[in-house]
């Protein structure tokens, strides 16, 4: 049976996390001056996350559209609204592809 080297795995994930942070912060900085470059940084960050099998950190997860995987920033190319109908939720509309992402506001089990 193949045993996975847990220590090496944790190291890879640690490096990956740092790389994702630098790339997405860079993407946010360059978004105004060079949108295509910023989009490329976001794509690399996502690929690094996939290679290391980690989720994007929460503060960055919402910056990438779930449908078209583009970098979206509130006020620039996405619309964020709080909706009260049905369950209270936040709706993020990506202005690139026009699709919506919903995030429930109620915590699970409350």
């Amino acid at each position, binding site marked *: 049976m193949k045993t996975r080297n847990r220590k090496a795995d944790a*190291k*890879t994930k640690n*490096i*990956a996390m*740092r*790389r994702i942070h*630098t*790339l997405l912060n*860079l993407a946010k900085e360059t978004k105004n001056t060079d949108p295509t*470059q910023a989009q*490329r*940084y976001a794509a*690399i960050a996502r*690929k*690094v996350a*996939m*290679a*290391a099998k980690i989720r994007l950190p929460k503060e960055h997860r919402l910056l990438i559209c779930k449908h078209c995987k583009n970098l979206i920033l509130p006020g620039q190319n996405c619309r964020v609204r709080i909706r009260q109908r049905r369950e209270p939720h936040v709706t993020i509309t990506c202005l690139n592809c026009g699709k919506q992402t919903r995030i429930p506001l109620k915590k699970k089990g409350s």
Partner: protein
Amino acid sequence: MKVSPDVVRYEFIGTEAKIARSSQSSYVGVCGKVVDETKNTFTLLDKEKRRVIIKDSAVFHFKFPDGTIVEIDGGLLVGRPEDRLKKTIRRLW
């Protein structure tokens, strides 16, 4: 920053790079911020001008955000940014 063979797995986009030695004489002395990376090249922003540098042909001096300067042979950095994450090299020094 502690330098270990793991530096080949770090992120180079956003660092300051300078070319120390190269088999291509026009590359020597090019310095600037790394703005892009592909499997075989780095793109440096040298005085508002984008320069595409073949990784395998040069020895780089990278300056990381915390100020450490590391000299790396570009041949070790060949590979797409996401594939470099799992690259391991034998200790060379």
